[in-house]
């Protein structure tokens, strides 16, 4: 297997994923090279890694022969400003995509790559206005576990030709194949923005929505009792809208967000949870005694848990409220005895999808829902 010999180096201690050592690490430089590598690695179990900012998320792999490092699959392929789209390679760090007066409205941990953001489906405060990966991704190129290259979508925003594989790969944690290139819809960079910060309970988020000021984000932090709203637009519009909100909430207009804005509430070696509930349930979740932080405008919040009891309590509460609670990351002793994903509707169908794409169960084995 010359491709494998040429590209792969032995794994080191630093390459271990969730405590599982990697035998080999390879960093292909193009979609074609990645396809050749994967075709040559048909007997190997594989985990895909970008910058590694979320490599400790999900369940540790059951086996790990080869890490495919995407960081050489890097750079902006196309930025068609007039068409408000860009095509970028998967290993490109989000922060390095220079788009002038346009933005790719995705959020992830500092240093995150495009591929990692798509594969794990991270989102931040601005999801209220801009949506998440699934709303911005308009085309995708992948290498299947059998080494075949496939595309879906394209580089125009409006497009209903064929199945939307981009959505299937979004949040799939590397279990369906390698993402090599993504096309995204862009937005104009707002000319002006302001934050409105207030001491206010989560109930007040409903009043912000009703005010018809079209906020870009509504965030709460139950530990500090603060609510903060991001307003974007023209300078005149932002001034008027933020003043209205400040009056409504009894808060202040600021140029900068509060320190907790968009920051994961768990320490680096702690248990981090993502909670999603229907909008009307956010106040109850926020008042439940366990500190939560996140998007009161969409019902996606985050929490640090101090142990399994708290995980189970939060999960029971979210499920009762009609939502979900996923443990994104946890230190190894907890991780080993914890159900990180919780109950998953539609699991039987998901297994069938996995079996079609990766019949040998070699890609990220065991990392995803239901042991996929």
């Amino acid at each position, binding site marked *: 297997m010359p491709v494998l010999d040429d590209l792969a180096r032995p794994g080191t201690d630093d390459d271990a994923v969730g405590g599982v050592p990697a035998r080999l690490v390879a960093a292909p430089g193009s979609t074609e090279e990645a396809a050749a590598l994967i075709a040559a690695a048909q007997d190997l179990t594989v985990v895909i890694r970008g910058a590694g900012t979320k490599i400790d998320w999900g369940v540790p792999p059951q086996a790990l022969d080869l890490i495919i490092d995407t960081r050489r699959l890097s750079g902006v392929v196309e930025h068609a*400003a*007039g*068409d408000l*789209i860009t095509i970028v390679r998967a290993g490109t760090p989000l922060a390095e995509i220079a788009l002038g*007066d346009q933005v790719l409205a995705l959020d992830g941990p500092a240093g995150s790559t495009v591929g990692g953001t798509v594969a794990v489906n991270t989102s931040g405060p601005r999801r209220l206005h801009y*949506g*998440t990966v*699934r709303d911005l991704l308009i085309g995708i190129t992948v290498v299947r576990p*059998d080494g*075949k*290259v*496939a*595309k*879906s979508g*394209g580089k*125009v*925003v*409006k*497009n*209903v*030709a*064929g*199945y*939307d*594989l981009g*959505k*299937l790969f*979004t*949040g799939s944690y590397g279990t369906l194949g390698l993402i090599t290139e993504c096309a995204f819809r862009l937005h104009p*960079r707002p000319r002006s923005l302001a934050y409105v910060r207030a001491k206010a309970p989560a109930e007040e988020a*409903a009043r912000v929505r*009703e005010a*018809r*000021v*079209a906020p870009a984000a509504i965030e709460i932090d139950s530990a500090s009792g603060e609510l903060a709203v991001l307003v974007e*637009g*023209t300078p*005149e*519009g932002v*001034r*008027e*809208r933020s003043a209205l909100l400040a009056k409504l909430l009894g808060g202040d207009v600021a140029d900068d967000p509060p320190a907790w804005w968009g920051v994961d509430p768990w320490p680096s070696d702690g248990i981090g949870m993502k909670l*999603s*509930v*229907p909008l*009307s349930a956010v106040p109850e979740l926020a008042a439940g005694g366990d500190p939560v932080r996140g998007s009161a405008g969409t019902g*996606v919040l985050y929490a640090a848990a101090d142990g399994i009891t708290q995980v189970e309590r939060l999960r029971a509460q979210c499920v009762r409220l*009609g*939502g*979900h609670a996923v443990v994104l990351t946890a230190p190894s002793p907890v991780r080993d005895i914890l159900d990180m*994903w919780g109950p998953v*509707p*539609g*699991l*039987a*169908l998901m297994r069938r*999808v996995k079996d*079609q*794409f990766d019949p040998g169960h070699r890609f990220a084995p065991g990392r995803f*829902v239901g042991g996929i």
Partner: protein
Amino acid sequence: MSGIEELAIRLRASLGHERVVTDRQELRTYECDGLAHYKVVPALVALPQNTAQVAEVVRACADAGVPFVARGSGTGLSGGALPHADGVLIVTAQMRAIRSISPEDERAVVEPGVINLQVTRAATPHGYYYAPDPSSQQICSIGGNVAENSGGAHCLKYGFTTNHVTGLEVVTPDGAITRLGGRAPDAPGYDLLGAFVGSEGTLGVATEVTVRLTRLPESVRTLLAAFRGTDEAGAATSAIIGAGVVPAAIEMMDALAIEAAEAAVACGYPAGAGAVLIVELDGPSAEVAAQFDEVNRLCEANGAFEIRIAADDAERALFWKGRKSAFAAVGRISPDYIVQDGVIPRTALPEVLRRIDELAAAHGVRVANVFHAGDGNLHPLVLFDDAVEGQAERAEEASGAIIDLCIEYGGSITGEHGVGADKAKYMPRMFTDDDLDTMQLVRCAFDPAGIANPGKIFPTPRLCGERPGRHRGAVEYEGAEVF
């Protein structure tokens, strides 16, 4: 007894006599959808009233190995609901209940036969609406919108059906009832909801749909700008987008489309216009006011010789009337026409319109252009007279050549009407065999027997379980009469 006769007996027992149609004359009323030149009479029509009955019909089909096709209002323009001659047509039109409107969750839960506009009507008293607004919104069903991932004039700013559906209850092709997503966002696991929306009925039947409701904007302002030609109108569009304005809609009509609309609905657009733009902005009053002035200025700067600003809802409705009636209006100036749906990068607009003119001249047909200029979604209307020998063929050729143009410029063969039966043949021009094969892996996961709306989207079905790259022969529409 034939398989269909046995199926009819089973379905009459479980659904009731009046919900199973086998009379040839009655079956004929279902022979086509909005793309009326494809006609196939189904073997049986089932009219289920609830999820359990849909599941029963699908299970019966699965047991008998009989294909099924789901149909909502039958307004689709790509033959997505074209029946199968030996199959069952499942019509969801009787499942029309709006189950809940929950402004506090910004969600509505509706049955698949509910009409698109009814959702907005039910939500408006609460200060909300359902954003996707296909031009057929007064008659098209939410179930059909889910199947086709329908768009509309306002999807430039608000996105398509897929961005507004958060949960589905579906009957998969084995007859099982499954929930995908729900009221809360970000359900764990694969985004099968995202794969299902827009799968054109090939992955199963949606039996309940949870949609996002959008807050009604504080302000809506609409202008109509008249230009000498499409080049100027296209330049104005680019200038507006380039200035960082995201209008709710930018729609363009060319001279021929305006002529048709005037003949049909007397919309009173400015005389002498070679192109008109309808630009609509919505949002907080403070934003809209600032941006509206800018749009006005940019239209003038790019050669608009008349700009009208809608003074009230009535005038706004009049601006839209010409645009929304344009497809049907073309019937006033031409005995026959083909509605095309393709997408190009917006910046290629002037060049592609010139190429379409050349194509029309070369084929001896006229082409009227109506389109969502903001997102490059073209709807060329190819006009012809079937009574004139050879015109239908030339129109069909011109229409196909326009699709090739869209692909050449890096666009898509369909922006909102879907692939259906009509464009499956074009799919290999846009996608490789491996691309199509990979999409069909999803199909195999949902429908290994290939009984859900077979023959749509994919020109060559993949035999599930076989090694990739090998295909069974393409299936033609048995009994399809194409005229």
